[in-house]
């Protein structure tokens, strides 16, 4: 008698669960667009967001650490823009040097110095920076002084 009751309860529960559950979630529906998409645009590409997710570190987190946390969004944008501009500038000078362009001695000296540090470890190896410690930005400031170009002009030219 007791077992019968339990069995009945169990059946009731299963029925109710089956009645209430459904497969109405969005991932289920998105599959139905695959075939149409292939018909219209060709095969499905294997997109990867890996590179972009990785750049969170270089573009935002490092920028945050270099900022003084006061109005940080502006500083973060500027900080990355600055580094980007400098890196482009270095590449340009490097290629000019390869074509034997007329560069001043200071620039050549600086390029030689950065050669070993920057191009050897070309994608800069990012180690984890402890909170509060700042990355060394001395070579960046130094460089803009040497090439006698103010940072503003570099921005205007390159970004």
């Amino acid at each position, binding site marked *: 008698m007791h077992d019968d009751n339990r069995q009945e309860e169990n059946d009731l529960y299963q029925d109710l669960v089956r009645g209430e*559950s*459904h*497969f109405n979630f*969005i991932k289920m529906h998105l599959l139905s667009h695959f075939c149409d*998409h*292939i018909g219209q645009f060709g095969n*499905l590409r294997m997109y990867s967001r890996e590179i972009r997710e990785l750049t969170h570190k270089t573009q935002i987190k490092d920028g945050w650490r270099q900022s003084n946390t006061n109005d940080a969004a502006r500083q973060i*944008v500027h900080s990355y823009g600055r580094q980007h501009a400098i890196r482009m500038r270095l590449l340009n000078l490097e290629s000019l040097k390869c074509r034997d362009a007329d560069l001043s001695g200071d620039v050549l000296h600086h390029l030689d110095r950065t050669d070993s540090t920057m191009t050897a470890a070309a994608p800069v190896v990012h180690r984890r920076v402890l909170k509060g410690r700042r990355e060394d930005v001395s070579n960046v400031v130094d460089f803009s002084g040497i090439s006698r170009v103010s940072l503003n002009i570099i921005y205007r030219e390159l970004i």
Partner: protein
Amino acid sequence: MACLYYDRKSSIAQAQQPRFHGCSASRLIAYSSQTLKVLQSRPTSEENHADTLQDVFELIFAPLQDVVAYTGSAIYCADSKVRQCFPILFAWIADHMESVALYGLKTNTCPKCEVPTHELGTNTRSHRTRDYARYQRYKPENQNSGSESKDDHIMCHNLGIGQNIFHRLDRVSASDLYKPDMLHSIYLGLFKHMMDWIERFLKKHGRLEAFDDVSKALPPYPGFLVPKKAYREVTQWQGKEMRNLGHCILGVLAVALHQPGGAQVIPFKRALGCVRVLVDFNMMAQYRSHTSETIAYMEDYLDHFHKLNDIFLEFRVTKRTQDKVDKQRNQIRRQRALVIE
């Protein structure tokens, strides 16, 4: 090909160009985390949030608009020729929550077609494609005529707060910007759900140990990474690992479910069939080229899946359905008790 990119968590937008001389060419265009966070903490923040998003993207798209509408731009091509090109936005890859924010929709809605929420799990494909320009045309009219019809409009298309940020772009159909994405919709979406169901299924039939043992004992093979841990021991799954799992799941499951007892034969068979169809669909979707035959196969697999998936129906219990079921069960018990008295 240049890519634009928006991240919902940290509210950034980036442009990415091909890599050049080891210099990472991904460029930060806008970063608005601070403003968004401030706005989110206020009560009427969601509309402001949507407005900020709209403003940021208008700023980003402005150069694209000018170039497309009037002049085109001279672009250096790989064959060292310069051509007059008219760049347009072609695709926007994002996970579902991000695209929902960008398209201005409610959470459980498809960015591509007007499928109602209760039909998401059925296999009907005849829903009308979303026309975002039309939504925008109707919005101001309805605001004048009264709040009720506006609500109707929003309800019937599942529109959220804010508007689609792509609808003002020239020569771009916003609903075509959404592209199916294997990583988010299959590996991190469906496979994850499927593993959930399989786990509960195995638990119900007492085969969980066997499953773990088999998945640990897999031999290495070129192109296949041997999982070091059993499925249950891993807390977070990456896309690559999920893809790896897709390679071996069917074999592992077949071994784990061998020698079924008398009443288990039919459910085991159905579960295996269901998983097989999903894995096959995934394999077909990865093909580099398609014929009408392969597309027909894919549609077939999807149909089969919708026929077979009721074996996993009882494992699709969410918290909400659990609450509902408990309520109903209590009601029935009470009625029975009354009858007995």
